[in-house]
């Protein structure tokens, strides 16, 4: 099955929807191999080692310290993954609805969806996070049932807002990117608008939405460290604690991005949208080598 054959040209104003050009001979292209991971790991350890060497040597060996803190940091990082997964799930569900609202035939639904999308898409993520942290109550009571809202739940909500807005744009862009002939063919076969959307348009959009959606997920995973700023005990917060407990060596901040590196790298191995995670890996690598 060569189902990619029908990828015809389509117009969109959304840069993420542009089909990547096929590789042309001679130009440089970064291709990731497992040994790159090893090289980066060594680079991190060596740079941490150098950092260690230039500081005073009263403290325990760097490896000892790392091993000691590892379980805690790992727990913190899993927390980051939970936050990003939940924010992605909520953001996708609400964002998809919002995206469909943007192409609604009802003028006011369309305008409202557009406004909400634009507002949350153009606000800095950190601002939205603060927004959720300070505007949401610490618990909500619905009909006698009290649901506590701990900080990490608020962080999920805060991060799902920009995700929602971006998913909304991805959905709208994908729907508009389909050739109008698809709509016309369905219409002329007496499909209702709803049937056209669900049976003809959206199934074709899923494939187009996947790469930008994966991209968003990658960006979100990196952005979960913002939660540390608002006091959620995720991996960066814990790194900070480890840092102060062990006397302020800089290698900590070279170590933490390794988690992201490993995660992104694994994701690259398993996901279809590989090139997106590769970019993420490059980012993590940069952080590893330079510090935060």
């Amino acid at each position: 099955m060569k189902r990619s054959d029908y990828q015809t040209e389509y117009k969109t104003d959304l840069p993420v929807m542009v089909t990547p050009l096929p590789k042309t001979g001679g130009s440089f292209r970064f291709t990731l191999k497992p040994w790159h991971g090893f090289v980066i790991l060594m680079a991190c350890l060596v740079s941490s080692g150098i950092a260690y060497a230039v500081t005073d040597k009263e403290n325990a060996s760097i490896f000892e310290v790392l091993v000691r803190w590892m379980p805690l940091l790992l727990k913190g990082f899993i927390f980051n993954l939970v936050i990003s997964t939940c924010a992605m799930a909520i953001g996708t569900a609400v964002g998809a609805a919002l995206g469909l609202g943007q192409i609604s035939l009802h003028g006011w639904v369309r305008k409202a969806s557009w406004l909400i999308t634009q507002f949350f898409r153009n606000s800095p993520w950190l601002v939205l996070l603060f927004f959720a942290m300070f505007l949401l109550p610490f618990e909500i009571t619905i009909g006698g049932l009290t649901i506590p809202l701990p900080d990490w739940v608020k962080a999920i909500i805060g991060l799902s807002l920009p995700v929602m807005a971006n998913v909304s744009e991805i959905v709208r862009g994908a729907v508009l990117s389909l050739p109008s002939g698809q709509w016309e063919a369905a219409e002329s076969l007496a499909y209702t608008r709803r049937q056209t959307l669900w049976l003809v348009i959206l199934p074709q959009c899923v494939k187009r939405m996947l790469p930008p959606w994966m991209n968003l997920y990658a960006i979100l995973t990196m952005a979960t460290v913002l939660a540390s700023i608002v006091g959620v005990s995720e991996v960066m917060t814990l790194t900070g604690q480890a840092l102060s407990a062990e006397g302020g060596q800089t290698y900590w901040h070279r170590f933490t991005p390794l988690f992201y590196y490993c995660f992104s790298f694994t994701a690259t191995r398993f996901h279809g949208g590989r090139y997106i995670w590769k970019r993420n890996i490059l980012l993590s690598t940069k952080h590893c080598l330079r510090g935060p």
Partner: protein
Amino acid sequence: MTTNEEMPMVSIKDVHKSFGDLEVLKGVSMDINRGEVICIIGPSGSGKSTLIRCINALNDIQQGSILVEGQEVNDPNLDKLELRKKVGMVFQQYNLFPHKTALENIMMAPIRVLKQDKKEVEETARALIKKVRLEGKEDNYPGELSGGQQQRVAIARSLAMKPDVILFDEVTAALDPETVNEVLLTIKELAEEGMTCILVTHEMAFAREVADHIYFTDRGVIVEHGPPTTFFDEAKDPRTKEFLSQIL
């Protein structure tokens, strides 16, 4: 029912259509009887596509009347779905649904729109595939079919709805010369079976062979029309003559 047989299947009267300030149809009238095949020819941009898209309400019109089996198309309360169940359409760019196989493309509308029984629909669909000579291609996706094959699937898809009239908008214009014939043959067979067809085409030899009546449009009006023999051999209007001399 007697009136139904006397009445033209499609009756177009003084239709005006503008896109913004651009008036594309400036008073077009024509009648198409049951079982008739008519061809609309004319230079590019003369409004041929616009005209036939008005018949199944893909375009709305500003003035005039289009009656399809007595149903007025130029009516704000028009039931578009009922109209489109009666009027099939085949496009220049095929417009098959790329995520469905050939068979699914044909079966989808009868099942989802007409709510027919899936088993019966599948039987009909396989018969239609056979009719357009595509046995063995049932489970291929449109991307795996040639242009001519895709167009024949599109014709079968339209036929599956059992329409009373089918609109063909330059359905061979995107095909290479060898495959044009296989599609034209399919249309010719339909015409011989008595299907009412409204064709926009640039295939003059084909039009002369299958059409009962030919309309020549230019700049939004019907300049001349008549049965093929008189039309091609005894054209009177200078614009028709010029067009025919260029294309023949």
